[in-house]
């Protein structure tokens, strides 16, 4: 029964983890940029939800799309101002650049919000589902379902809209896409902004469950790394699989080695996977 509970704990985080990583994966896949800023964007989304709850009493789960919208604007501006000039440069340049932006962002958040952990207290508490002897906190269920819903919405957007097809086309062959009349620069900016949207929304969902602090941005970024490598780059179903896989692995890893080693286990796993199967479990070319 314990194992079933541990499995449930892991699965209950899976959708949320997919939501954390999908924006990072999109930016990596389409812009070919490792966005070190991603973790900080998640934290900012969390703070937006925290303040929306504190001052206006808005439920953080419902606030997620709005936090995402704010981050969309910020992401669009950052891509246009700083990242666009280095598009197509080697990974060293783009990674150092996003690292620099991240230093600024992190420091600004630390100055604005200080390093204290803060928690959204949802009143009345959402309670816990009991299925047999397995307990499932309702807030986690909400977060994971909403996370999955947002990931699904992104998937539909990429599949079914002109904008989404443009993003996929640029990802596959930017020159051919440009010849077909797609504005490549705008598409890059929108793809980056969509990544930021998903980060902001994920942050809002996270703030409904976990305490938030500027210092946790690195661990979210690390999770995004692992999920992308686990699931493979370039497909949303891959990210979802990676998210659930990481949730379950972390959960069982915590049972076996203690919760403090969760990060070590997932990074160790990441290294092993990179060595054995760098394209990930479900990796494909193109972005579907």
């Amino acid at each position, binding site marked *: 029964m314990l194992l079933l509970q541990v499995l449930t704990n892991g699965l209950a985080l899976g959708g949320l983890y997919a939501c954390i990583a999908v924006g990072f994966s999109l930016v990596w896949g389409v812009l070919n940029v490792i966005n070190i800023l991603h973790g900080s964007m998640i934290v900012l989304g969390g703070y937006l939800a925290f303040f929306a709850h504190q001052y206006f009493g808005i439920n953080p789960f419902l606030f997620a799309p709005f936090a995402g919208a704010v981050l969309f604007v910020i992401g669009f501006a950052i891509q246009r101002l700083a990242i666009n000039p280095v598009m197509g440069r080697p990974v060293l340049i783009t990674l150092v*650049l996003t690292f620099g932006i991240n230093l*600024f962002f992190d420091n600004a958040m630390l100055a604005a919000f200080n390093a204290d952990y803060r928690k959204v207290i949802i009143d009345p508490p959402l309670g816990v589902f009991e299925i047999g002897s397995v307990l499932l906190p309702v807030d986690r269920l909400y977060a994971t379902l909403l996370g999955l819903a947002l990931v699904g919405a992104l998937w539909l957007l990429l599949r079914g809209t002109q904008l989404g097809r443009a993003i996929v086309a640029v990802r596959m062959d930017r020159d051919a896409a440009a010849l077909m009349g797609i504005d490549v620069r705008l598409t890059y900016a929108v793809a980056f902004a969509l990544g930021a949207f998903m980060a902001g929304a994920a942050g809002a969902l996270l703030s409904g469950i976990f305490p938030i602090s500027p210092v946790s941005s690195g661990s979210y970024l690390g999770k995004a790394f692992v999920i992308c490598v686990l699931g493979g780059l370039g497909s949303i179903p891959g990210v979802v699989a990676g998210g659930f896989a990481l949730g379950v692995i972390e959960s069982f890893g915590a049972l076996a080695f203690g919760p403090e080693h969760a990060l070590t286990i997932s990074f160790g796993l990441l290294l092993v996977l990179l060595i054995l199967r760098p394209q990930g479990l479900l990796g494909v070319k193109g972005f579907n």
Partner: protein
Amino acid sequence: MLRYSIIGAAVVALFVVLLAIGDNYLLRLATTVAMYVALASAWNIVGGFTGYPSFATAAFFGLGAYACGVAQTYGVPLILAWILAGAVTALFASGLGLAILHLRGHYFAIGSLVVADVLREITNSWTSLTGGGMGMNLPLIGGSTGSQAQFYLLAMVALAGLSLLAAVLIDNSKLGVALRCIEQNEDAAQVIGVDTRRAKVAAFTVSSLLVGVAGGIYASWVSYIDPIDVYDVSLSVKPIIMALLGGVGTIAGPVLGAFGFLALEELIWRNSLEFHAGILGLFVVVLVVFLPGGLRSLQGRNIWQLATAAFTKRWA
């Protein structure tokens, strides 16, 4: 070669003057800059010559620091402990290199980036050996504060010299040619008969050896290390910024970049204690966006021309 000799002579002269003055603040700055020269030059062997975006410097630095600390607590004499630190790090890096150097681009960057996190957590948990999160105190060498400072400056400058020597030797060797081939086109290099795997692992190992010794000297110099400090990700990024500042892939670039970076860092720290990381971040953005070739792209042009050129290029 003439340029290197002039730079070398200038550095030696500076160093003699510093030792003569013996001001503790200046000694600390000089030791730091020597460490930066070592780190940036060592990184440049992998990141510049070979073109592999390594973010593993922090991992090697921390490993070297802890190897030295552990060795010293078991009574290994100081200088031997530094050599041991380098050896342990090089051994680790050769294994790691065999495992991750077949990755390219973004995957290699991420793979090398997370190594420091893994080592930090292992160091944190292995309390019996490393003191865990409490950190580790290293034995002091005795003597006055001034003479200690001079001793560590000497050690760090020797290491910086060694790093430069290693870079020059590699650059002028068959290995250097192989690395440059890999940097330009790895598949082509393989086709013309370069043993790319061996060359890459060799470069990675030499680079890590120097970084490991730097970590060891740093550990004895500050005499207290903790996992958060010595495995800090900024240790991976700073050498890259220095190399970018001075010119990636050149011998003199990382040296100039190290001096430039230290000057900048001191300036920022002095003027803004609260927001220094943020300003450093902005500086990185400006550097990467406006000066892609480092300070050398300033030659003959002023900053205003460069900025307008970059803007017109972007908005056109």
